[in-house]
């Protein structure tokens, strides 16, 4: 095996080790998933009564309510995921390992993404039940995946910064929400398009922008993560 493939293999192994560790720890504690789930359910429940809309109007606000729910629940997940690493010095333990530090970043991104997608998939039937809307649309699932990737990539980078501060729980949403506005708007456009059964040509620009934003934010995070976590 030559050295580039060795490096690639150790990178992949490190990412896999971090994802597996996060899943095993969450399986034991169930802290992160349960708090995200309960919070998402509460947001959907509150919107249901607060908006008190006609069935025809409800369908129109679906994308907005869904993404607000996912973003709020996701913030809890991002904060908790990094807090677990910081509280007992485990982030230092990861940074001390002789692996490319972006492997740590991608490991955390993948595990947080798994938790977020799980919450989203579980929330869809609940939303359908509360709002009497059919959400089983492959296009919407694709947008949820792409939007969540962008959100978690940016969120993981910023939470690794915020976790170093005393005000981490408050700081993350303050720095995260303005940056994810382009991702959120594209995801909303594309979600609305699929939910209203528009022609694919009309949805394509929003979908394309979402993919482009995912690529750009991933590349930027890849480049700066090492500097963000080092003092």
């Amino acid at each position, binding site marked *: 095996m030559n050295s580039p493939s060795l490096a690639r293999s*150790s990178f992949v*192994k*490190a990412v*896999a*080790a971090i994802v*597996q*560790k996060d899943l*095993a*720890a*969450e399986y*034991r*504690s169930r802290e992160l998933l349960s708090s995200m789930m309960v919070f998402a359910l509460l947001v959907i429940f509150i919107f249901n009564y607060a908006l008190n809309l006609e069935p025809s109007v409800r369908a129109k606000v679906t994308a907005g309510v869904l993404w607000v729910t996912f973003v709020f629940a996701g913030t809890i997940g991002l904060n908790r995921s990094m807090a*677990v690493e910081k509280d*007992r*010095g*485990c982030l*230092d*333990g*990861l*940074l*001390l*390992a*002789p*692996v*490319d530090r972006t492997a740590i970043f991608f490991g955390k991104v993948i595990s947080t993404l798994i938790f977020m997608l799980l919450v989203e998939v579980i929330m869809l039937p609940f939303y359908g039940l509360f709002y009497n809307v059919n959400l089983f649309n492959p296009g919407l699932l694709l947008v949820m995946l792409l939007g969540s990737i962008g959100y978690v990539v940016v969120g993981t980078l910023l939470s690794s910064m915020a976790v170093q501060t005393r005000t981490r729980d408050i700081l993350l949403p303050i720095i995260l929400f303005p940056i994810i506005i382009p991702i959120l708007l594209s995801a909303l456009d594309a979600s609305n398009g699929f939910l209203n059964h528009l022609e694919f040509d009309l949805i394509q620009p929003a979908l394309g922008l979402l993919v482009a934003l995912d690529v750009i934010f991933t590349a930027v995070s890849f480049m700066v993560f090492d500097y963000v976590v*080092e*003092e």
Partner: protein
Amino acid sequence: MIEVRKLVKRFGLKTVLRGLDFDVQPGEFVALLGPNGAGKTTFLRILSSLARPSLGEVKIAGYRLPGQAAAVRARLGVVSHMPLLYADLTAEENLRFYARLYGLQNPEPRIAEVLEMVGLEGRRKDLVRTYSRGMQQRLAIGRAVLHDPDVMLFDEPYTGLDQDASTMLDIVLKSVASQGRTVVMTSHDLARAEDLATRFDVLSHGVITASTSREGLGSSNVLTFYKQSLDA
């Protein structure tokens, strides 16, 4: 094994390390003493590649920091007052996770060996959250020696330990040091430092102000040496 030249570390306008020079030979056990705020933890964080130097040169085992940080990290074991362990994983799972990060081939025999060394083989399947502070610290040492590093850095390893746990940690530390490793340990516990180390350096106001070997102490002790070097 460790060469540090004119090391400066600034946090904004505050300069913590002010042109520090430091050398450690292979196999030496250096106790780094100094008052709170002297820069000991910052210095160890730079040696362990967790912080970047503002100026100066740092070489460990022939590799430069921060440029060759991954090579340095592969030869380094670090123990701080934080355990660096996951509470919701068992001792075995924690060590297996770190073994994967360090790329250990066939880690199971090494994990068993390390757990026996730190006296936790009987609790290997228990969650770390059920461990006492002393047991967590012993497991933290197990984690740090898992990949058989040449250099060990201990940052206040006795913090928060009761007498029994400290005595147990003494035994583990002596075992780690007896295997020919180079050790740098910061501590406020001068008696323990005197018992373990072969050299004593005092770090004050961001520079090494005094250094002596065990032989150099003569009939004096570390406490007298420490007080004299701070008064000077």
